[in-house]
């Protein structure tokens, strides 16, 4: 899966499973400030990432994610390893 595929799949997840408005999505969009994803929403996002990309994301790595682009980076790294 290349980066653009990850991006597109992640965007779909954010829209379908977290209910985020597609128009608000951008690589530099911050989950908390721009997308209104609170601490509970971050947990939900992690579950969605793990289920849909088949990766395992420990809490301490999850805490580093603040933007959509960083989430893509993390998934890309996990898939490569």
């Amino acid at each position, binding site marked *: 899966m290349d980066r653009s595929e990850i991006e597109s799949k992640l965007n779909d997840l954010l829209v379908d499973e977290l*209910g*985020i408005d597609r128009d608000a999505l951008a690589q530099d969009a911050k989950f908390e400030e721009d997308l209104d994803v609170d601490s509970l929403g971050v947990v*939900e996002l992690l579950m969605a990432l793990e289920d849909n990309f088949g990766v395992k994301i420990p809490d301490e790595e999850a805490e580093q994610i603040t933007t959509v682009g960083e989430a893509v980076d993390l998934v890309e790294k996990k898939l490569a390893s």
Partner: protein
Amino acid sequence: MEDRRVVITGLGTINPVGATVDATWKNLLSGTSGIGRVQRIDVSDLPSKIAGEVSDFEVTDYIPKRLARRMDRYAQFFWVAARDALADAGIAYEEDDPEAYRTGVVVGTGIGGVESFEQEIDTLFHIGPHRVSPYGIPKIISNIAGGQVSIDFNLYGPNTTAVTACAASANALGDAGELIKRGAADVMVAGGADASITRFALAGFAQARALSTNNDDPLGASRPFDADRDGFVMAEGGAALILEEREHALARGATLYAELVGYGMSADAYHITLPRPGGDGAARAMKAALDHARIAPEDISVINAHGTSTQANDATETVAIKTVFGDRAYQIPVSSIKSMTGHLLGGAGAVEAIASVLTIRDGTIPPTINYTTPDPECDLDYVPNEAREAEVRYVMSNSFGFGGHNVALIFTAA
């Protein structure tokens, strides 16, 4: 604080007979039932396959998607009802509005987020704890409807929840009125909701032998006080009323629908699901409400009955009414809108409060439909099948819940 009086200045509801107050009232007066075969879930192996569903409820028509998906259906119903009631009352607060600090919420719910509970337990058992939703707990808790409404409508005042089963929203209204009377708030959003058309709730109530199994005749299944009644029909939905201190309402030129003048409570102290035979508990709640309103039994024009369509409730409520009203019981119209709405559990008392308030406004009593065969144990005037015009001064609304909770409210023209 002795002088503080409580009036009703806004109404909102979404329930099986209507998605608005106007549609609800029109359908109640025309005797239109909201009951049918359950569509939302698989009922093929359940004894009771009928319910009063809020059909065509597309939640995102009412609540932003991001918000709606964090809420159980019961909280969504209350949210919609509260939104409509606030709008009807002409109340909208910006953040930090001083008035908003004097405005609170009391919600009643029987079971709270039971559908979400079922889903999360299913996930826990079949997938594991790591996939239980972070929103699981906030979705199921019974107080979240009130919390969520306070967040979205900027209501900073007293905020609590009554969980007295099928008496819950009657308690919510009574408790909210008391908060206004003692000066803790000037405005209260009060009401309730439940969304218990779920497999667990339908199975559980059926095992308690409380539900109608008249599956072949959904429209005729809820038949309060009729000899052929065989249990209540599950229903879902919510209702909210804006209670307001009378001078506060007058000062801002609000529409006054009615005044809440009486609130009585009692406990049967008898059985978890059955009413005490003889109806002593229910009668004491009605008497307490009359005392609170400082009126005599003769002053009551109409009784909006709890009237669930179970054998036990309807016979016991009838006896209790006779205990309180004596021979005059036979002259008082006693109507049960559950014949049309089904039983909204914690939402019932608030929907029935709206019906009571509109009965006062319009001088028209909604009927008890499906009344065809008199029961010797239920021999009062149940306003059978046709709405009736009447001179209405005081309306009493009864609500009784599992656990033996009895509540009576009394409304009059403002």
